[in-house]
């Protein structure tokens, strides 16, 4: 399964670079990739080179990072909360980021902030929302996970109401921009946005993947885990902090991409079993490949206009999930 996922990842990377409105031969693109690491010669024209390396490549890399981070964060949340409905937005990341982005886009305070502040305010909003949830939920350390989930629901509802109010007060142009941001897109990807989120994503993915053994052990419940020698509350804090930080960084760069964080870990679970030691690392690669495929569809199917990425992730992911679920249960013969 690991090998299959890696093959899917390589194919996704090539698709992400090759497929687009400007037709560039697959082998010329592959040749250019090898030339970049000192093997063979680059046969691309300057224009083609710019299209590949300045437009498609950063978009593809940001897609890989977003898919990997959202998938592993979703899997981690499902493990730590022992709840199959958990996704990376469970503790208010989406609502907080949405409020921050809306704040920037609708220009509250007449020029005090500008739309260029959107990523920063989305990130700050997401982190403040999670911190608020943590405080409201009894600081997480003392409370049980159910209390924390309910606190997340309450905080998300509160922030969404404020965000909706701001949207209502905004001009129609701003509302459209907010709406586009909320549906998520990789269209504004650049190498600078890649470099900005890279450290967060790499560190957070490593922490989440390393938590696999802890999440397996914690599947016997809090009291039994403690009797086995696990510092449950500390593990929970580290895992939630890493998942939330990585998700906030990605959301600040690409907006709210739904579905990846909840469905990819489930698809992987159906394929490789219930151990988080396997689910989490495979989710990283599967999520990365899945999102780049989805983005390739989103930017080509109605070219030159683009479909919202969240629409494509749901449209591809849901039937795939149902198919695997049916096959696993022997419903389809």
């Amino acid at each position: 399964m690991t090998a299959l996922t890696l093959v899917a990842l390589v194919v996704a990377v090539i698709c992400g670079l090759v497929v687009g409105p400007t037709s560039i031969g697959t082998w010329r693109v592959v040749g250019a990739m090898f030339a970049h690491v000192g093997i063979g010669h680059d046969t691309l024209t300057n224009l083609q080179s710019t299209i590949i390396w300045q437009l498609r490549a950063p978009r593809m890399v940001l897609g890989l990072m977003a898919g990997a981070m959202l998938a592993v964060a979703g899997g981690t949340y499902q493990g730590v909360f022992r709840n199959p409905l958990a996704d990376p937005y469970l503790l208010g990341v989406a609502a907080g980021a949405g409020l921050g982005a809306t704040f920037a886009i609708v220009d509250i305070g007449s020029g005090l902030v500008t739309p260029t502040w959107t990523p920063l305010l989305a990130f700050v909003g997401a982190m403040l929302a999670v911190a608020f949830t943590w405080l409201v939920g009894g600081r997480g350390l003392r409370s049980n996970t159910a209390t924390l989930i309910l606190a997340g629901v309450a905080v998300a509802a509160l922030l969404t109401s404020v965000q909706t109010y701001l949207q209502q007060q905004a001009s129609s142009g701003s509302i459209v921009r907010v709406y586009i941001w909320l549906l998520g897109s990789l269209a504004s990807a650049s190498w600078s946005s890649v470099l900005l989120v890279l450290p967060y994503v790499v560190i957070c993915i490593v922490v989440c993947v390393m938590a696999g053994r802890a999440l397996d052990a914690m599947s016997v419940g809090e009291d039994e885990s403690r009797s086995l020698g696990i510092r449950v509350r500390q593990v929970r804090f580290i895992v939630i902090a890493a998942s939330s930080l990585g998700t906030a960084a990605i959301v600040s760069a690409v907006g709210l991409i739904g579905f990846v964080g909840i469905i990819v870990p489930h698809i992987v679970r159906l394929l490789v079993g219930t151990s988080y030691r396997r689910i989490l690392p495979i989710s990283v690669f599967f999520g990365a490949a899945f999102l780049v495929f989805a983005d390739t569809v989103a930017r080509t199917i109605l070219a030159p206009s683009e479909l919202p990425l969240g629409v494509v992730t749901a449209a591809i992911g849901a039937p795939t999930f149902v198919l695997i679920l049916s096959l696993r249960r022997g419903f389809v013969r």
Partner: protein
Amino acid sequence: MSWIDIEDVCVMVGSKALLSGVTLHVEAGTWCTIIGPNGAGKTTLVETVAGLRRVTSGRVSVAGQHIARLHERERARLVSLVPQQPEVPAGMTVHDYVALGRVAYHGLLHAPSREDRNVVESVLERLSLGDFAQRDVVSLSGGERQRMVLARALAQSTMVIVLDEPTTGLDVRHQMQLLELLKKEVADCGLTVLATLHDLTLAGQFADRLVLLDEGKVILDGPSREVVRSGELSEHYGMNLRVVDVDGSDVIVPVRH
């Protein structure tokens, strides 16, 4: 030498005392069973010894170490727990479940060592679980499942094991089988056992010592035969209990009025 020292322990929840001035010392290599009616505080007592519940006052020590001051890993190397209703995660193999008992040794970031694997294999063998090692935990019968939970506790290689109603939901044969296995471990490895049991006959037959708990207080504490034959059991269970000698073993029979 006593391995478990419970000194004047009180546990309060709000204004209700779950345990009140409980003092108990369990000698190394012996089996002590707590009996008492529902709500007596038996589960609270074993959870306190396992370090899962804070005491309001008093002190619990295991092997001379104050249990509340130990880190989780240190505590898990001293005391293992068989809970009343263990959670059994679907999809996990019996081998992996039993291997959870070694987490306190290899930690959460490292794979089990050769020694960890040897301990797990040995426990699986001793408890006749070797043939089930690769089966999903949810596919086991009630008796097999309880043996698996006992195996996880034994894999912790502790000198003290606490069990909260380990025979719940088992038929008579499987109850006897589980307790016999534990008795053998006590004899072979010098384990110290603190258990709670509802079945007074089994409690009397397996334990070296019985402690009757009621309303959070120790009512009786002594050798099994003495406690079973004292007239106080009937009073605290609120019913007529009769002791019948069957081939030298005490059998406690409830008598309907």
